């Protein structure tokens, strides 16, 4: 069968062609919205028009079978209009109120998980992990699955003091906003990489390999036409591996994950914040990483128990103080928690004020 004529540099289709009529009509003219249930919200236009959104969870990785099913449902209740959220959830866009209940019934019956709207745990943004990434130090989808199973009720029903944004990154390259999430898991290595010098010679550019190291641990090894790594300076980030594959960083025995907490991207109340290290290491324990879920549970429980309404995890921790955070969660404070990277000095406690 002949292929159709390819076209180049046309860019994506215009978004207007994918908007439900009620959105086209009321574009930029919305008045307010209300959360009707954990999985349903309504947006009301100044014209009085309404559109309902019904949100269901998605593992982000979808088969064509599932996409077709979603499309079928959208056709049945939404005139074919559907969207994805920035956190990989699916939203059915309902223009006719009478379709709202039948849609939800069908979603329930098909075991789609409705929820994620409002002050609760929404889907976990994540990376490819062992499914499709060369630099993964852990799987991402698996961690997301076990965490979302653990906290499913915070997606479907229960509330948290404010939204809890979680993320999972399968290496410190951190595709995904791990560095600014309420609670996030990031996979880390813990051993100095080994170098296949013969391959480096052929496959790698020495200057860019050297430049890839955040701590200046890599220097040329002219004799071997390769590079060498100063073990005292290497903190196993794996960026050298990314630019020079013969530098092997994977180590099944010593790879695992760290947990970071307290980041946010929104400007509401307090400014955007970076996540900070809470737990430096938990061994990879697939398929269900029970130590990761129980540790995240500890942090979440402490937050839910102690935070004020509308406080994000980072705002809660800053209010009570980091020393109190480690106390109430029972997490140990280690040398790894003390920064020794480029802005370390800005994190030292230059004050006599703290809690016992």
């Amino acid at each position, binding site marked *: 069968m002949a292929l159709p004529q390819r076209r180049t540099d046309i860019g994506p*289709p215009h978004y207007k062609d994918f908007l439900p009529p009620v959105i086209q009509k009321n574009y930029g003219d919305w008045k307010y919205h209300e959360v009707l249930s954990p999985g349903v919200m309504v947006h009301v236009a100044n014209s009085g028009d309404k559109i309902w959104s019904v949100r269901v969870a998605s593992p982000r990785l979808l088969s064509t079978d599932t996409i077709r099913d979603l499309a079928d449902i959208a056709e049945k209740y939404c005139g074919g209009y*559907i*969207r994805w959220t920035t956190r990989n959830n699916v939203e059915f866009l309902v223009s006719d109120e009478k379709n709202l209940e039948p849609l939800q019934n069908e979603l329930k019956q098909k075991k789609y998980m409705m929820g994620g709207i409002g002050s609760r745990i929404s889907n976990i943004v994540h990376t490819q992990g062992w499914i499709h990434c*060369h630099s993964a130090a852990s799987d991402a989808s698996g961690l997301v699955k076990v965490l*979302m199973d653990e906290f499913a009720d915070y997606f479907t029903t229960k509330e948290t003091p404010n939204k809890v944004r979680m993320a999972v990154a399968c290496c410190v390259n951190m595709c995904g906003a791990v560095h600014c999430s309420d609670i996030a898991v990031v996979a880390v290595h813990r051993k100095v990489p080994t170098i296949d010098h013969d391959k480096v010679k052929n496959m790698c550019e020495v200057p860019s390999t050297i430049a890839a190291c955040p701590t200046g641990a890599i220097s040329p090894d002219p004799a071997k036409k390769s590079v060498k790594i100063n073990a005292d300076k290497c903190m196993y980030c794996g960026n050298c591996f990314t630019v020079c594959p013969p530098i092997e960083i994977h180590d099944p025995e010593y790879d695992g994950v760290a947990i970071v907490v307290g980041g946010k*991207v929104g400007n*509401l109340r307090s400014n955007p914040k970076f996540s900070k290290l809470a737990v430096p290491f938990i061994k990879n324990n697939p398929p269900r990483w029970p130590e990761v879920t129980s540790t995240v549970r500890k942090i979440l429980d402490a937050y839910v128990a102690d935070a004020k309404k509308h406080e994000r995890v980072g705002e809660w921790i800053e209010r009570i103080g980091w020393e109190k955070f480690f106390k109430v969660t029972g997490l140990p404070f280690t040398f790894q928690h003390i920064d020794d990277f480029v802005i370390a000095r800005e994190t030292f406690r230059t004050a006599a004020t703290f809690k016992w």
Partner: protein
Amino acid sequence: MPKKYETPLLDELEKGPFPSFVTEIKKAAAKNDMAADELGQLEKSYRDKRGYWKHGGIVGVRGYGSGVIGRYSSLPEEFPNVANFHTVRINSIAGFFYTSKFLKEACDIWDKYGSGLTNFHGSTGDLVLLGTNTENLEPVFAEFSSRGWDLGGSGSALRTPSCCVGPARCEWSNIDTLDITYSITQEWQDEMHRPAFPYKFKFKTAGCAVDCIASIARADCSIIGTWKGNIAIDQSEVANYAKKGMNIQEEIVNMCPSKCMSYDGKELKINDADCVRCMHCIAKMTKALKPTGEKGATILIGSKAPFVIGATLSWVIVPFMKMEPPYDEFKDLIRKMWEFWDEHGKNRERIGELIIRKGMREFLEYIGVEPQPQQVKEPRRDPFFFWTEADLQK
């Protein structure tokens, strides 16, 4: 009939309430050789606690330097159907809106030429077609592009711009995030498809400071909608919120970061001159509070993940810019930034890293933006600073 793998470990991940990616892979694997081998290799990864993918080499579609991420199995003999298994990035629709018609067409193409596995969406916002062989790349591209869809960015290029849902379905948006995203995507097709930058460059556009698209953390250029004007207050709606149980003093007034609000149990007051437009009060009392006056955006530059110098958040370059089609002022500014980056950036140096390395002054002077206190949290602390000859003559 695709090969059937035993997956005792992955099977554990089909348990529990959250939808299972394993189930998704199995659905595809039931009819697709590539998906089957993907499943098999993944089970092995779970057993061995390590990944089995290698770096991509140069692979793509004719005339494009990006849009396809090469990926090769390091176990090609054991899993021959994923020996090469590349990602195709389809430039998604601004706001992530779709129609069932398109989705079904896409599924048909992808079942024919690919693994049947997708990501809605990749981290940057592309519609990700997860895995196909090298020889299928051109057909996939032909099928999609003939239907009006193009590839997204990858490598040292402009990456697929993305945005929040914006004016399409949000009352808080100060700018047309979808239109901005569409316009810049169309404007810079060449920059997206033929990598010529020192490194990647991402745009993300958020309608307000709630920043649902995480622009301030995940874009070299973060466009965040804002306004210059007062917040209009509907006191009867304030009363309604109070009646419905909101503790306005605790939840709104006390949580205002600039302490510009007061409430006496009847009337809510805002000292607009002290407002920093954080969106907390507006987000919590949407029916009662509405920004008025001029709408536009704050332009921030420089966020990225930790490599190499540590994670950065974008910082303010232009506190306020009108954002109206065809966005010429904005586009001219960006072009100047790219020129600066092109001139001074090292290989694999993000624009934010470059600015940190060269200093804000050199950057601002190059792009023609004045120094303004809104660009900094605070002025410098150490009395170590530079003077140009021109400064000295002033």
